[in-house]
């Protein structure tokens, strides 16, 4: 083995978290601004995807791999959420 031990510097995860927070802010702006309801669904979907990324970077920065479970659960749930919103809109079209 090499003498240098692997160590992830703090500023990397910090920068990633800041970038992800900025993009979440932008997604929130587009959620408020979106002219129609489907636009808002797209923004919500994007926010959910960003929160998965946030959880993964947080797991790497704390060094606890159990946080990856949260990412898996969010990934499983957001799909159902998006489909539920879409079918709600379809029902609205029927009325």
């Amino acid at each position, binding site marked *: 083995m090499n003498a240098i031990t692997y160590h992830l510097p703090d500023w990397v995860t910090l920068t990633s978290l800041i970038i992800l927070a900025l993009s979440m802010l932008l997604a929130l702006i587009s959620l408020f601004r979106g002219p129609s309801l*489907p636009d808002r669904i*797209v923004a919500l979907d994007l926010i959910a995807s960003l929160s998965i990324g946030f959880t993964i970077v947080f797991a790497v920065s704390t060094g606890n791999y159990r946080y990856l479970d949260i990412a898996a659960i969010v990934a499983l749930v957001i799909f159902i959420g998006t489909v539920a919103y879409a079918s709600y809109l379809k029902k609205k079209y029927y009325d």
Partner: protein
Amino acid sequence: MIKMILIPVLLLAGSLFSLLAAIGVIRFPDIYTRMHAATKAPAFGILLLQTAAAIHFSTLYAVAISLMVIIFIFLTAPVASHIISRVAHLLGTPKWDKTVIDELENDPDVSIPEKISGSRTKQS
């Protein structure tokens, strides 16, 4: 040490692609082009971030759960974008002025469900 270089690059690239998706959703003019940004870029960003996490922990559990998340995201992202764009087209969401062609409009091959004329009909 290859890990020393690979993991920061993957983490930063993944979060930058997520930022790209957010900028695209704000900048693009109509919903269909927005869907391009909101489907491809976050899926790729999550792929990069999960790869970084799998290499960082490099235990069997972390690799397995990372693989599961990646496969699930890549199976469901196209389905979600399909269902949103279909509903948006059904509701008649306005398209951009410079849209060249629309062959889905009034096409007989796709059955548009009839509006149910029930007691809750909207007055317009």
